[in-house]
């Protein structure tokens, strides 16, 4: 036994030997570096997605007018700077694709599952560091393939990020050839990356918790990322399969989704949304988890109803599998099936409501420190609430009829994905920035960014509910074609100005993020006075994290505990005289 331990220690040391720049930062197997790689790449794609959105808003606000800077686009996209209908459809398709698959999903899962799971569990690294590295490089490859589709003949997909067949299955009907194939290939590669990542997260959570880190001592961020990984590993393969079938339809003429030769149009929708709805929860559960950690910290209080928060995550994830049909209420699917999906969809509001009330319960009688992460976390709670509540309109099937496929649903999804996920990221990024880079992001710029974003975000997306009620369909190139939409065109112009302002103020975030890398205040070891395991390490944490596997003595939210003495926090790693050391779990020999 002694010799084994000795050997382990040696290999461990070998890990810490100085490495070349390439091994350390590029082909890294360190979960923290991989998380940071994901962060840079997905922030870049977030910017790309934002640029596409600006062009969409230009066209909707000022249809037919030459776009400023549009002259640099080729004539096949914008003739004389005026966006063409086919390019407009590509813009909406690729905005959704980039934001869902290459910005929000990797920002939440790629970055924070990687970065936080081992640190918060007291683990030295992921269970499979090399698979983890492969997961990042595959994600980057997928992103590059997707980007390439802008530069091929006929450009990228024209059938929405949802790629409804038969439009997406028939090049003669969509007018897209190579772009559609690249979309399918990119999604298959991305799915592989996601599955690899998810298996890693699941294994790590099950096997690599430090002694004393019981299931119900895990922070809600880790719970959420763990459940998200389970969703990912089950959902992505369905999309991959569907994407391969769609690719075959395009390349081999298999007609899986085209009734002209025995296929079924709705089959694509069932497959896509069987993936797509769990995907929605992949995009929100990690945000909920991280926001829970930050709200407890900012309120200096234990999370209200920890156990029910865990069960709500599990409940949402479970119900998330049986609600996909609500995307198809108008599709011609059996109306009785519609009733079933309506019930499950309405039920999923219950665990979501529980979470919101429990966050409020956490803030109640707290001692609120409104630092930038806390401000954005509160922004998340109030905006996600709007997104959740607007979902009820669409869940109630008769009410869905007039608003289905209108701007109302565009408003809804942006309240969930921007008001929800992105605000959570604006909370998480500065919160764990010191752990990543050893420096703090600027507090003043962060606050300014929060308030301006919060204001322009609402001015952009709230009016979309109203033009959606007025009947403006999604993805139409020029709303003024319809007489009934003309009267509300001034509101479209208003939304566009608000969107431009929203995009512009993001420069504050970009500046703050980059400037602080070099000039940010040096971070103290525990800048937020938090309880998490990660704050027992220096900033940034070294490769391998802890020299010795740490012990965990309590739950993650012991803020203002009477046992904490004159402090208002009691970290998981602090041993009080009354604490006993946990019995270490049998650790598999690490030398394998």
């Amino acid at each position: 036994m002694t010799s084994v331990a000795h050997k382990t220690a040696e290999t461990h040391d070998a890990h810490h030997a100085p490495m070349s720049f390439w091994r350390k930062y590029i082909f890294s197997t360190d979960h923290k570096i991989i998380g940071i790689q994901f962060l840079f790449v997905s922030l870049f794609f977030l910017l790309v997605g934002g640029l596409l959105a600006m062009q969409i808003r230009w066209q909707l606000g000022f249809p037919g007018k030459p776009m400023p800077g549009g002259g640099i686009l080729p004539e096949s996209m914008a003739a004389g700077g005026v966006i063409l209908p086919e390019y407009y459809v590509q813009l909406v398709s690729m905005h959704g694709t980039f934001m869902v698959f290459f910005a929000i999903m990797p920002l939440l899962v790629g970055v924070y599952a990687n970065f936080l799971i081992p640190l918060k569990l007291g683990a030295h690294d992921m269970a499979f560091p090399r698979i983890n590295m492969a997961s990042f490089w595959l994600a980057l490859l997928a992103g590059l393939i997707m980007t390439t589709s802008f530069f091929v003949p006929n450009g990228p997909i024209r059938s929405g990020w949802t790629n409804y067949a038969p439009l997406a299955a028939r090049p003669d009907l969509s007018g897209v050839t190579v772009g559609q194939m690249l979309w399918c290939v990119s999604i298959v590669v991305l799915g592989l990356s996601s599955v690899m990542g998810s298996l890693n997260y699941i294994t790590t959570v099950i096997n690599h918790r430090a002694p004393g880190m019981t299931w119900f001592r895990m922070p809600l961020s880790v719970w959420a990322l763990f459940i998200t990984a389970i969703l990912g590993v089950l959902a992505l393969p369905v999309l991959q399969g569907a994407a391969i079938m769609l690719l075959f339809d395009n390349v081999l003429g298999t007609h899986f989704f085209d009734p002209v030769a025995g296929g079924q149009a709705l089959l694509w929708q069932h497959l896509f949304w069987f993936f797509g709805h769990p995907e929605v929860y992949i995009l929100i559960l990690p945000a909920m988890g991280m926001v829970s950690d930050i709200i407890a910290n900012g309120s200096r209080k234990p999370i209200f109803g920890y156990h029910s928060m865990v069960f709500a995550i599990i409940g949402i994830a479970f119900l998330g599998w049986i609600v996909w049909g609500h995307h198809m209420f108008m599709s011609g699917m059996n109306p009785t099936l519609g009733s079933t999906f309506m019930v499950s969809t309405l039920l999923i509001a219950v665990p979501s409501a529980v979470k919101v009330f429990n966050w409020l319960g956490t803030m109640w009688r707290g001692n609120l420190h409104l630092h930038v992460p806390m401000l954005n976390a509160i922004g998340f709670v109030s905006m996600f609430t709007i997104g959740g509540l607007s979902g009820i309109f669409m869940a109630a099937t008769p009410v869905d009829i007039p608003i289905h496929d209108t701007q109302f649903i565009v408003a809804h999804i942006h309240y969930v994905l921007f008001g929800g996920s992105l605000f959570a990221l604006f909370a998480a990024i500065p919160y764990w920035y010191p752990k990543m880079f050893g420096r703090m992001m600027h507090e003043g710029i962060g606050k300014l960014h929060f308030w301006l974003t919060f204001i322009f975000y609402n001015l952009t997306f709230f009016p979309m509910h109203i033009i959606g009620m007025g009947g403006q369909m999604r993805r139409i190139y020029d709303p003024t074609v319809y007489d009934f939409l003309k009267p509300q065109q001034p509101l479209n112009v208003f939304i566009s100005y608000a969107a431009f302002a929203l995009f512009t103020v993001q420069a504050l975030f970009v500046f703050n993020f980059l400037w602080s890398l070099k000039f940010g205040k040096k971070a103290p070891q525990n800048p937020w006075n938090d309880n998490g395991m990660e704050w027992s390490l220096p900033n940034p944490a070294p490769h391998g994290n802890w020299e010795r596997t740490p012990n965990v003595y309590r739950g993650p939210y012991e803020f203002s505990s009477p046992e904490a003495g004159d402090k208002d926090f009691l970290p998981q790693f602090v041993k009080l005289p009354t604490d006993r050391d946990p019995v270490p779990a049998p650790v598999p020999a690490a030398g394998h």
Partner: protein
Amino acid sequence: MRWWLPDAGSTFAGPIDTMFLAILILTGIALVLVEVGVVTFVIRYRARPGRKAFYTHGSTRAEVIWTAIPAVTMVALGLVSNHYWVLIKDKKSVPPNAYHIGVHAKQFEWQITYPGPDGKLGTSDDFTVRNQLHVPVNEPVAAELSSEDVIHSFFVPEWRLKQDAVPGMHIIAWFQATKTGEFELGCAELCGMGHYKMRARVFVHTPEEFKAWLTQQAAAQGAGGGGSE
């Protein structure tokens, strides 16, 4: 500028608009509760030196209450919704006396087929009009939706009616217009680059007007003329 749903133009609009309003009130109450809570707590419990947060892990009673209230509300909402959903979309709800027309969608136009003088769809005296939908007021009409190529969606905002037209499927959407006049039919499902201009004019006639229009069109068809714009 309109700040509400379009004017009501069919028998569906009444219950749908009432439900919309009811949900708006319910969600409005929930929203105000949450936002007022957030703002109040931010002001009232803002950190002050020397103050300590109240140490609690939660309250089972509070959690049971705020789990049960949304659950009961959602179940009730589901029951009411389902009643109208079945009425609007279920196959068995199509009134037996409905006037059947064919609505065939293709990139990027609507082809509306009317039964000829025999009053039956699918016979040789049917005639087809492009991008014009004529219906009588206060009479149930059943649109038999089909598609030539990709998925389109039949959407008349005033009627609160939306139904996809799917290639390979035959879907019946019924409605009863309550207001005469001219409206618009749009495509609500992305169907390609011309999606935005897949628009048809909708005319709701009095029964007499409608009869006259039918006779005139049928005659024009019989004379070999195509009834189109």
